């Protein structure tokens, strides 16, 4: 074992001695599994990009760890009684990285760019939909921003805070070139962008004039004081190599350790493992238009034949909690009623399948090897359904094709995963809707769609909770999908790193983290 460790150490030191030249001692080095796509928030992005950009840019509001919303650049948020007018008084102590103070005009400027079609902001459509339509951004004075909606929306603030929308981050106009194209972010975040060497690393520098909020760090909100001078995101695509790099002391945070490496890592002196469930969802989709699966008894049979706890245990090596509810277990909206996982019942499954007229014809389940979990879910499901006499055939295709078939609803069954949805309405919305206009939606139940829309307008949490419970009960009746679990993020840090925390969104946060050698 020791030999192995030293080998890995050598390996990793070779791997990283050149990636991290001298002087990196006072820096926090975090593994990034792939390069970021751009620095243009919410435009050309992926999870890595979002995770990097939230160190640099901040929005008016920000996400707390439990997916609720807290003010960030705004002092507070005042919502009018009719739910149509949002007033954001701005904090006065905030400065951009270039030293300029934050003004309402900056907010208006940024929002205008986001809302322009040419910008290709990912969330432009979400702010111009039937549920949420932002009609105006006004600046009554230099320290106040007012936004107006067409109708009340429970989602509006959540959407403003969405990391994949770049948190609608407010940037200084110096971020743009003269022609209006994106140059580099000049934001208000605790770090400013340093050197970005494509394919190798992205470096952030502490923003000395950062105006931190009081209190504790909480999600993307709260106290975000930078504690280290520099943060280097080192790009190491290979999992084994990043583990080796961590052991060799060449990175300080392994934010996404493989489950199967955890026992070994836990056993090492000084290593701490931080785990928290994320807001994503692994799920099996069923096409309710399919001749075989149209019959709800058939779908129920399938759900009964699956041993969900066993399946989840096998796929996640016991680290995730099985849950049949689409709302993640970490969410404040995940109620005890949603925690019920019906037991496996092979006899009932066989009987239901029989009644549905199933005679052993093959049912194809689409999956991909891009995400091992999808593949494993499909393989295990095939195995488990076989016990109930249901003949599943694996159709392993590549991810791009699977995504397109998902979009078109072109499948019988599909092992799939939804990325984090931060609002419970969105957790249902991701698979609920009319197939006629949105073929990707698995659950086409008009009643439920009405409930869903109501939940989006409803701002009272208690009433929303009961709506979601009702929807969950109906979901378990209709079984258009079998939700399985939300994955768990495991980060590992050595003893000299303090204050690192994982949270529901799986990209790392460097503020509040100290390096003490």
């Amino acid at each position: 074992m020791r030999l192995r460790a030293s080998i890995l150490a050598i390996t990793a030191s070779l791997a990283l001695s050149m990636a991290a030249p001298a002087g990196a001692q006072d820096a926090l080095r975090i593994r990034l599994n792939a390069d970021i796509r751009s620095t243009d928030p919410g435009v050309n992005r992926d999870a890595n990009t979002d995770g990097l950009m939230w160190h640099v840019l901040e929005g008016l509001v920000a996400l707390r760890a439990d997916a609720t919303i807290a003010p960030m650049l705004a002092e507070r948020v005042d919502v009018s009684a009719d739910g149509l007018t949002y007033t954001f008084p701005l904090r006065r102590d905030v400065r951009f990285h270039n030293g300029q103070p934050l003004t309402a005009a900056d907010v208006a400027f940024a929002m205008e760019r986001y809302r322009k079609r040419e910008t290709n902001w990912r969330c432009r459509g979400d702010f111009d939909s039937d549920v949420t339509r932002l009609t105006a951004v006004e600046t009554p004075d230099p320290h106040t921003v007012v936004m107006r909606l067409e109708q009340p929306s429970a989602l509006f603030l959540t959407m403003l805070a969405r990391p994949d929308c770049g948190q609608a981050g407010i940037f200084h106009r110096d971020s743009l070139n003269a022609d209006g194209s994106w140059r580099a972010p000049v934001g208000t975040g605790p770090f400013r962008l340093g050197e970005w060497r494509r394919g190798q690393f992205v470096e952030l520098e502490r923003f000395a004039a950062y105006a931190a909020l009081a209190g504790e760090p909480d999600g993307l909100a709260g106290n975000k004081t930078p504690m280290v001078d520099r943060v280097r995101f080192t790009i190491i695509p290979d999992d084994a190599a990043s583990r080796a790099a961590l052991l060799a002391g060449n990175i300080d945070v392994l934010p996404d350790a493989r489950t199967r490496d955890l026992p070994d890592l836990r056993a090492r002196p000084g290593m701490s493992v931080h785990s928290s469930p994320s807001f994503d969802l692994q799920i099996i989709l069923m096409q309710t238009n399919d001749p075989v699966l149209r019959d709800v008894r058939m779908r129920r049979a399938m759900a009964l034949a699956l041993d969900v706890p066993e399946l989840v245990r096998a796929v996640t090596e016991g680290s995730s909690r099985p849950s049949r509810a689409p709302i993640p277990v970490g969410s404040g909206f995940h109620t005890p009623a949603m925690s019920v996982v019906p037991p496996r019942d092979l006899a009932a499954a066989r009987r239901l399948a029989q009644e549905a007229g199933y005679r052993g014809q093959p049912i194809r389940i689409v999956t991909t090897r891009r995400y091992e979990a999808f593949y494993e879910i499909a393989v295990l499901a095939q195995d488990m359904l076989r016990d109930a006499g249901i003949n599943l055939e694996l159709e392993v295709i590549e991810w791009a094709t699977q995504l397109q078939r998902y979009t078109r609803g072109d499948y019988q069954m599909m092992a799939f995963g939804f990325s984090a949805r931060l609002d419970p309405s969105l957790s249902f919305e991701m698979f609920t809707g009319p197939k006629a206009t949105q073929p990707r939606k698995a659950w086409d139940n008009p009643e439920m769609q009405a409930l869903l829309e109501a939940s989006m307008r409803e701002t009272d949490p208690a009433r929303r909770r009961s709506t979601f419970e009702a929807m969950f009960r109906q979901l378990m009746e209709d079984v258009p999908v079998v939700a399985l679990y939300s994955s768990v993020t495991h980060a590992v840090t050595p003893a000299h790193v303090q204050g690192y925390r994982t949270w529901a969104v799986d990209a790392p946060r460097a503020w509040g983290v100290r390096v003490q050698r």
Partner: protein
Amino acid sequence: MRLRPNLLIGGTLLGLVFAMAGTALVWTPHDPVRTNLRRRLVAPSRDYWLGTDEFGRDVASRLMEGAVTSLSVAASTVVVALVLGVAIGLAGGFLRGWTDRILGAVNDTLLAFPGILLALGLLAVLGPSRWGIVLALGLAYAPSVARVVRGSVLSIREREFVEASRALGNSERYTLLRHVLPHTAAPVIVLATSLFGWIILSESALSFLGLGVPPPAATWGNMLASARPFMDKAPLLSIAPGVMIATCLLGVNLLGDVLRDLLDPRDEA
């Protein structure tokens, strides 16, 4: 001189692989696709000769199943490549002129195409299946066949017996079929042997990249690919399929040398 040991060793190796495939058609120690989560990555034992993989499937059974897949895919692909290649090569070599030029351009294009792109494209269009692989690799290798056939047609048509046939008043078609075609057989047979090896290699490479015969069907290539993350924990998972591929290829190459020695057209003169 080296003919005899080549024949012996090559025949034995290839015979072994074929015997494995033949056995797998009727019997394997375990169901090669049946998973067993309680027995993942088990070390070799009397029950599991080569242990189990990450889904608890029996590695020995999967290797045997892989032999069936690899051999059948390779054999069908060789047929596709030969049919296409011989047709294109004969037409190009004998008709010459514009036909040859156009076919030549298409051939060059195909040669400049990495097989992987062709395979992906066809697999995506045809849906993932072993027939997609067969067609894709068949198309990818047809130009090499065409090139060999065309080359040998061009050299044969300069031989005097072809001119003699023309002097007799025989039609071009008759001359092509009666006097030219049979002479392309030797190089084509030699090439087909090499092709067989290349295709086994390409199929496993494609599977390794995740583009090959789709899982859970066992192929040596996708077994290798899925064994990679467990290389340090279960090295046998990585070693066994490679040994199979190498055995098969060595057999093919040795027999190919024997065939070449027997059929080499250079020895005709």
